[in-house]
């Protein structure tokens, strides 16, 4: 998919590809010649190539100088103020704060362990080997342990959620958001394809309304309106309200993905299940959903990537995720104004996670296509 346009021979208008049985050396030569042709073959191409090289020549050296050559890697803030380049010493000094926020200093192994557990669980379920029912149990156990770790229980005083901050919050909101949304999304997708008009309309209403408003609006409703809707005396924790809002929001999008998977199942499958005498739920559980979900796994991974990025929006309701702690770090009077470094570091975290995940999604797509054949 990606290299379609990169190799000039695969372009539809390029000459036919070289024959298969060419000696290796000559093949390499023809590749080099093709690359040269693609770069400098026509006047237009030469102009494009030169323009690209010029743009890189203007932008890259200052960037490299700032980020690496002139950068200050350690030492106090005064050294950074004197230097010309990036102040990575700031990141080194604030690393703990950016990643784990203002969790109690002497108990920070707890959020760190929770982060590692969540990352490990996500990494584990990436392998198709673990796509089985037992994995769900492992997830639930892992999430429970992570939540216990973050809340400071059972040994020691509980840590209020206001002090949960940094990367573990993003990971927690994302994983619980996806897992919590899943059962609801399956029900919504089935309801939207149901023969029962009332239930179908309810599902359509919920899905379309949720998809029609921005996540920020939903988060504001959770922060401002929900406390007003509860009986006086009953209060729900702010982070939990945000989590519920995220679950509901994601379930609408997930339902549409699952519905697409359901649409792709041929009618013969329903008919065969019916001929075997399976009930509606039996048909769904044993025949339809396993096939439908398998085809949409890449889309679900992409949704999870999007959600991981969207969890930063809790900044607007005053919660501290990793982006907000990074920004806050640059407000420290001793290290004032190193915003570019702070945002650069946060971007690096997101880039690493999201690029890995989207590569995985592409690999998965190719693998599923192979399995189908």
């Amino acid at each position, binding site marked *: 998919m990606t290299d379609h*346009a990169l190799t000039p021979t695969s372009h539809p208008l390029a000459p036919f590809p070289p024959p298969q049985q060419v000696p290796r050396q000559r093949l390499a030569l023809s590749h080099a010649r093709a690359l040269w042709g693609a770069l400098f073959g026509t006047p237009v*191409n030469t102009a494009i190539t030169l323009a690209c090289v010029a743009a890189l020549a203007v932008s890259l050296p200052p960037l490299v100088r700032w980020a690496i050559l002139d950068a200050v890697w350690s030492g106090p803030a005064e050294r950074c103020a004197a230097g010309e380049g990036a102040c990575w010493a700031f990141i080194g000094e604030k690393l703990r704060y950016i990643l784990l926020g203002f969790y109690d200093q002497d108990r920070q192994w707890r959020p760190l362990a929770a982060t590692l557990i969540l990352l490990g669980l996500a990494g584990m379920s990436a392998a198709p080997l673990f796509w089985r029912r037992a994995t769900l149990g492992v997830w639930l156990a892992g999430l429970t342990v992570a939540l216990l770790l973050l809340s400071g229980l059972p040994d020691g005083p509980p840590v209020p959620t206001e002090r949960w901050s940094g990367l573990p919050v993003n990971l927690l909101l994302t994983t619980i958001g996806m897992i919590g949304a899943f059962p609801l999304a399956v029900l919504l997708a089935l309801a939207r394809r149901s023969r029962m*008009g009332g239930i179908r309309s309810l599902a359509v209403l919920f899905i379309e309304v949720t998809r029609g408003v*921005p996540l920020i609006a939903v988060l504001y409703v959770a922060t401002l*309106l929900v406390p*007003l809707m509860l009986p006086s005396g009953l209060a729900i924790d702010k982070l939990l309200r945000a989590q519920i809002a995220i679950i509901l929001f994601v379930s609408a999008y997930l339902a549409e993905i699952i519905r697409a998977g359901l649409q792709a199942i041929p009618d013969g499958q329903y008919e065969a299940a019916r001929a075997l005498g399976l009930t509606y739920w039996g048909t769904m559980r044993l025949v339809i959903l396993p096939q439908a979900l398998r085809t949409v796994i890449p889309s679900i991974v992409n949704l999870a990537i999007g959600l991981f990025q969207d969890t930063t929006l809790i900044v607007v309701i005053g919660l501290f995720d990793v982006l907000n702690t990074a920004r806050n770090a640059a407000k420290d009077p001793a290290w004032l104004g190193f915003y570019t470094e702070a945002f650069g570091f946060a971007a690096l975290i997101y880039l690493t996670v999201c690029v890995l995940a989207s590569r995985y999604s592409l690999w998965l797509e190719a693998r599923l296509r192979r399995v189908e054949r």
Partner: protein
Amino acid sequence: MRNQPTPALDPLRWTPPPGRPGLTGRVATWWGERPVTQAVLLAGVALILVFFAVNTAANMERFGITPGFGFLLRPANFEIGESLIGYQPQDSYARALLVGLLNTVKIALVGGVLATVIGVALGVARLSGNPLLSALVQGYVEVIRSTPLLLQLFFWSATLQALPGPRQAFNPIPGVFLCNRGILLPAFAEDGAGGWVLLALLAALAVGGIGVWLRSSRIMGQILGRTVGRTVGRTVGSTGNGRRSDALILLIAVGSGAGVIVGSGVSLTVGFPELTGFNFVGGGVVSPEFSALLIGLVVNAAAMIAEIVRSGIQSVPKGQWEAARALGLPRGRIMRLVVLPQALRVIVPLMTSSYLNLIKNSSLAVAIGFPDLVSVVNTSANQTGQVLESMAIMMGAYLTVNLTVSALMNAHNRHLTERGRR
């Protein structure tokens, strides 16, 4: 999903069973099986909503707030940084909300146009035979898609705030200055001239659109083509009915645009920003908040649109290129006649959803201090305590825009799935 010729065997899809005429029959058919269970479920949902409503009313009474939209007429008493229409703090909440809505519409429109232009260009560049250009665009798309939009907005906001003051302003193009007060551009000197020009453009577009629509409808097309077209065609000097009516439509459209300008009596002299003392005088200024939001949204949406354009063009099978080439068509015409019509079937629905995303993403304005709808609603809700009403207005505004587009897309999807069924 409805009205499909699948047999009644299929347990999942709704098919109209035979018989049962009349309105009640139809309602019963639509309601489907297990009517009582459904009614109980819906009643349960309604009950929960009523529970919330009762609590809200009780809580509002406790805080001494009168429910209802009466607060909209009270003075808002807060400043709004920028506005398309005149606004003072003593104006009503209704006007403040309108200002927010107009700001959202402004960013969505300007951003949508810019993102489309840049995104299509990038998508084509991504597919270019030049590996260097293609790789650069791929890198750009990857970085943008792998970082949160909010992070990008924070970055642009911090970058624009770090620009030097007016006296050391960057001057990249003559007449354009970049400084921490925003972006200074040449602009119409007279107040409200920009609005009239926009109105004139809209009028020209509307008249042109009506003209095209009239021509495509059969009867009016004949009238246009035969009677009016003949007279104007002679003066314009072109041949063929199509071209004659094209020229006519263009003429009328441009004429109506010019008419608006002349009729308004506004002068179109352009003022340039000039540094006098510590600040700029003349010209127009784009605030740093709006600039940061616009740059962030456009850079983000353009990357998405580039991907859509690329995947759309690549979705056309290679055989189509080869067949068209075998027919002896030149490259440009292959693109225009064979590839684009097929690619557009993939591109258009995806573009619609990326415009929807742009509209929804503009709500991130609240995080960098641009007074969009969400920001004004938030301030109003906090000041008045009329949370339910404010949230209803915000949801309603977004839903009105998005549900319209969503309904169109679903109709389109139904059309496609019905045609492509096995």
